[in-house]
Structure formats: C-alpha cells, structure tokens
C-alpha cells in the first residue's frame, strides 16, 4: 500500500529551541557557510517567531517550524521545474528534489508559497577534516542547485533495507523517523502516515485544533499544525491583523 507521509506540529508545545534546525542540518550534511545570511543560508527546517502583537504580560509568542509542506495536489515546484528535478513520489507522498537534475533556475523557489526551498550559493565546504563527520547516507549538494526537506529520505532507505534484510515488504514505522522529529525535546513535531487511518498522527491531523497554512491555494500540504489558541489558528490564512512575524 502506498504511504502518505506527513507531520503534525503542535505549536503549543514548541519552545523555539532550534534543536530541529540543528538536527536537520547535521543529518542532511548542510554545510556551515560563514558568510551565509537569513536570505542566503540553507535552512531546510526553519523556526519562525510570531507574536500576538500585544505588549506586557498579554504578549504571547509562538514558534512555527517551517519546512517543505510536501504539497500533494498541483505541487507548485513540480509544475514549474523545467528539468523534472522535482517529483511527488507516489509510493510515499514525499516531494523529492533531485539535485543532479537541477540546473539552478530557481523557478521552484519563486513558486513555493511557503518559502521552503533554498539555493546553494556556495560550494559546500567544511573546516579541514570535518568531512569525516558527514552523514554517509546523504550526498553533498554542490553550488548552483536548489535543495529542501525530503523527510530524511536516507532514513527511509535504511528502514527499507532493514525490512528487506528481514524478509519484509513493509517497513517498521519505528525505523523511519525524520531527524527533526527525533530531536524535538517536547515531541511537538510528530510524523506519521496519513494513508493509514489508524495512525495516531493521521487522527491528530483531523482534530479540531489542527490547521494547514494557505489551504486556499488547494495544494493539499501534508504538514499540519495544531494549536488551541485562536489567534495562532488565524495565522493559517494570514488573517491575523495584529500578529508580528519575524522573518528568519
């Protein structure tokens, strides 16, 4: 059976620690570029800060981890790519980026409504010797290509290899957990298979507190967010009049 992997992020639990950002970068061999800025850096997982715009003790802040939403329908990056370097994997629902095919036109970055794609402006480089600490499951991307979250696809490969070695066709869900999900100290980021109605994460996505960003575009993103606070849920369609967003 085909899977539809997705996440539910409980914003009430997120403390904005940034462990997901660090774990994502370490897992995916993202280079530490000294000259990178918020505009030119590579942050496939990026936590943004939004406040309710109030002052004093009425002020509330929420931290929103933003990554590729893995849009299921009319996936904007897929439709604009002239190289077929992006595709929605039918077996997993993951929007895959193939850097080998990418020619660096950055149409996909313009098309992505969530600003979840990043361009490699520099050759990947690490301090001398540090390449020994790179994750052997993930290839290093070179300058001139776009990259984004692929839900730690290397981990899916490992889970499949483990299942195959055990003579099984289906992977054990416990073997496939993306790095950001594993790193979250408050378990705010949860990962599951939306094709499985019994998956607890799949059920959570249908709770009344769950929402998705920019659903009016009809792209059916597979990243759900959750909050009990009305002003946070109102952010989904950017209707919050007084929210302050710190762009990262």
């Amino acid at each position, binding site marked *: 059976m085909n899977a539809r992997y997705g996440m539910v992020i409980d914003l009430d*639990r997120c403390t904005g620690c940034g*462990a997901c950002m660090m774990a994502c970068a370490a897992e995916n061999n*993202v280079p530490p570029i000294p000259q990178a800025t918020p505009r030119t850096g590579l942050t496939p997982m990026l936590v943004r800060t939004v406040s309710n715009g109030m002052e004093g*003790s009425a*002020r509330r802040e929420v931290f929103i981890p933003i990554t590729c939403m893995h849009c299921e329908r009319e996936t904007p990056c897929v439709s604009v790519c002239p190289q077929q370097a992006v595709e929605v994997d039918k077996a997993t629902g993951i929007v895959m980026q193939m850097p*080998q095919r990418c020619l660096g036109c950055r149409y996909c970055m313009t098309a992505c409504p969530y600003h979840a794609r990043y361009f490699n402006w520099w050759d990947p480089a690490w301090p001398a010797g540090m390449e020994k600490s*790179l994750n052997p499951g993930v290839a290093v991307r070179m300058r001139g290509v776009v990259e984004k979250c692929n839900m730690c696809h290397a981990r899916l490969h490992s889970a499949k290899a483990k299942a195959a070695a055990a003579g099984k066709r289906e992977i054990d869900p416990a073997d496939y957990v993306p790095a950001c999900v594993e*790193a979250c*100290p408050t378990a705010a980021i949860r990962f599951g298979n939306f094709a499985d109605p019994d998956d607890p994460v799949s059920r959570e996505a249908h709770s009344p507190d769950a929402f998705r960003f920019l659903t009016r575009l009809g792209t059916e993103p597979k990243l759900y967010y959750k909050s009990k606070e009305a002003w946070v849920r109102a952010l989904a369609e950017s209707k919050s009049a007084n929210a302050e967003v710190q762009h990262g």
Partner: protein
Amino acid sequence: MKVTRRDLLMMGAAGTAGLLVTPVPWKLLDDVSIWSQNWPWIPQPTHGPVEVKQSFCTLCPNGCGMRVRMAAGWPVGVAGMGSHPISRGALCPLGYGAHQLNWHPQRLRTVRHRSNSASWEEARAAFAKACREGPIAIVDGYPGRAASSVFETFAQKRNGSYRAVLGPETRALVPYESWSGVPAAGLGYDLENAQTIVSFGAPLLDGWGAPGRFTRLWAERAAGLTEPQLRLIQVEALLPGTTPSRTATRAWQWVPVYAGAEAALAGGLARVLLDEHLVRARGPMPPMTIAEAADQTGLSTGALIELARTMVARHPVVVIANDGDPAIAALNVVLGAAGARGGIVRRTKLAEPHASAAADIDSARAVLIDSTVPWDFTPPTNVEVFRFAAWDGGSCTADWLLPAPGFLEEMTDVPSAPASAIETYAVAPSLLKAPPEVRSAAQFLGGIDSALMPTEKIIHARCADLFRGRAGTLQGTEATPVKKFASVQKLEEQLWKGAIWIDEPPRFAAFRCELKEWPASVRPAHRVGSSSVNWSRTWCAPVLPPLASKLYQESSLREAPEGRNV
C-alpha cells in the same frame, strides 16, 4: 561495391538520427550533470561500517545521554538516549552538532606560553616550580568526577585549594547549605512531582538544567492546556527595549515585576502566606509589609495576595530562583517545600559532595583551570594561570594554554546532573582517539605526582562501591537491579557500554532547613536576564558547533550568545 560520397553522408546522417533514439546521448547528458556536481574538491562523506554507540555529553555538567552514530570509526550523527532518566532522549540544540567540534578551526593542538609555542615538559616544570613556591589552586567545572577527586587530592597534598565553579542551577541552591548543613551539590528539585512551579526568572524552557528534563515535563503536563496539571508561574521583569523570555511567554501565568524586585516579591508572598495561614509554617516573618512589597514590585496589593493564594492552590509547590538570592530561597522554607515531595530534596549520595565553591584562589601562587570550566571564568590577575582547553575561545589571559582532549576523546565518569532529584552515575567512554599532543589536567597532574591514583582506577573503585552498595538500578537496553549482578566486572562492562546507574528515589525526610530570621537579599554577582540566556551558559567549550550558524546567523530565532565564537 563502390562507396560514394553521397553514401557516406547518408550513413552519417542516419547514424546521427539513430543515435538520438538510443539512450546513449541522454545517459551521457545525465552523467555529465552528475560528474559536474562531483568535482574532486567537493567534500564527500566517509563510507564504512555504521554502528551506534551509547555515550554521554560532556560539554556541560548535565551529562545528557547520547546515541552516537559512528561510520568508519568517526562520529557522523548524534541523537538523544531515550532511557536516560533525566534527559529522557532530549539534547540541547548545540549537542546535535557537537560531534563536529573536534575539527573546529579553533581546536588547540599545541602548548602555548604567553602566545609562544612551548612544550609539555616546560609547562610541567613551570607548574611543579609553582607548587614548590607557594599554594596552588585548582578550579573544576564539573565537580564529583574521578578527575575532580584527582584535583582535590593533589591540592590537599600541597596545602592548596580546590574550587568548583557551580552553574546557575546549583548556585540557586547554595543558600540552603547554611540552613541545613547539606552541600548545594547534594540537593535537587523534585520537579517531577510538583504541581505548581514558581520561577523567579529561571529560564526553565530555555536552557535551565538538562534540556529534556523540564521541557518534557511541561510538554506532557502543561503545554496547550487551559487547566494544566503543572502550573508554571514565571516572575520576570520586562526591561524596556527587550522582549520577554520564551519561558515568560509560554508560562501558564507571567508576573511582570520591576527589575531587581524579585526578592521583595518573595518577601511579600511569604508575608501573605504567613498572615493568612495558607502554609503550616509560622515563620520566619519577612520584615516588610504587604503594601511595601507591592510598592517595590509594581504589583497591586490585591494582585500580590491573589498570586500567593494561586501558588498554594495546587500542592506540591516549589520556587526556583535564577540565582542564589537567599530571600527567594527562604520562600521555599515558608512554603514547606524544603525536604518535601515535589520540592527541594537531598539526593542519596554516591560520595559526599564538597562545598568548595567559595575556596579562596586569589592568594594562590598558581591556578590550574580544568577544561570543564566555562571559558568566561576570570582567574585572579596576579597569579600564574595554567588553562586547559580543547578550543581557543580568544582573549585568553592565561599564562599557559594547554591543549585538552576534545569531545568524546576522553573516558570520563558522569555524576548526577545539577539540581536533579535522583542520583545517577555513568561512564562516557572514549569513542575517538585523542591526538597525541593533548593531555587532560588529571594526566598532567599525574605526570607531576606519580603517587596520584589515575582516573581509570578511581572509576573502577566507584563501580566497586556501586556493586557493594547493591542499591539502585542499572539502566541499559533494559533495567537491571544492581543486586542482580553477579560480579563487579559485569556491572562495569554494562557501564562502559553506556548504561546508567540510577539510585533509589530520594528520601524526603533526609533534608530539613532551620531558618530563624528572614534573610537579607543579596544581589548575586552573576545575574543573567532570562531573555538573553542560552544553553551555552554552562557549556564548557569556548566555541560552538559550526552548524549553530543555522540558529544564530541564518535565522532570527535567537541571538548568538555573548563571547562565543559562532
């Protein structure tokens, strides 16, 4: 058969057309695009057998459990150890990039004497001379380790002093030392059983204690709930031009007070609790009236009374200070939280902790600073300073800068996390071979005094003590009571593989505080505004993992910590 020019042209054209319908040109195009993205100067990961080893983070005293993924003998990824009783599978963000620290450009590899290259023999001779000439002092960042025992023994033998640099969590427990006779290093907060936590500026959600400890509790029992099982009340000043801390904006209730008025608020709250008989205690009575306290804090009298009532509405309640202000600590005594379930408890002890934070080092002839001491520790100016460090944080005033083993390069034991309620003991194995040019401070002292017991032997002796004590459980892949181990070797073997010894729960009655008078507030020297805190407060490495640039440089999530090389 005669081949004409026309035939040749036709053959060429047909061949070219035919080639286009074969996969050859497309495969070539594909390969060229791949080759052109794999130039020799593009770094490639090392491939080799992958294995996961258990260890413990040694970059701050919390000693969080880690699973280190090793490929071809090198660490390629770090994740939390779910079975660790304190960190419970969580790490701080910096921990996720710690495996790359050993290749940081600021890594120290040579002995330096006042910015000049020197040798270990010269450093050893200089320290031995200092030992002969006058008292020496040794400063330790993680007290309670086997190496700490080496430091203490060495200092005692030479009439020197041993000083532990305590983190903010332990410093907040220092006032109880004089009221109970129990050293602060042996005390902890029983947060797991508390129902109301009143934090006086402590950054509970943003770098307080082991990263996974309070955040996991808060996520399970408080986050997103209007009526949470765990009420977090954050008392914190909002200074002009600053934003409130993450703990304040995520707390169940945030009480903004004037800056520096926390002690007055503690006094006012104690006054309400005692006047209204909301607690069992009958003293000590704070000298100020409720109206005076309200005036000093900026709260209304009604709000102060309401806050006191809210505090005791859900028991157990405990107050956590950001630093060692005795007035805030006294509020716990009034609340009955000292020596109570869900309050401040005395851990059962593996060894008697030492209260040496106040040891005098100013009159020493020389000071040796261990690599576990945070880089911003300022030694006295008129003494010869021997500073061990694995990385150079810049602006070093030490006379001698001595290269120490880096992350995972040294086998060390890991005692209980500061402020934890239960005693634990673990051994962080050396997963990487240390470069030949580095030495630990304990090895250095062993080179001067060969009668000192090496750290390995001390760890063996401690394991033997655990075995003889027959108390507690060893938590590895499964939990095994210590009394079920047939020999000390079996127990040691498990500890070496990354298991952690967990003592039995604390005995609450073992800690009592005698406080006759309300203490005067002492504004601590290390006052840190909650909004500016970070995990690196007790981080011993003067540099941060290069990947921390994602947090500090490429996003506006948080500001880079002061004085750290990002």
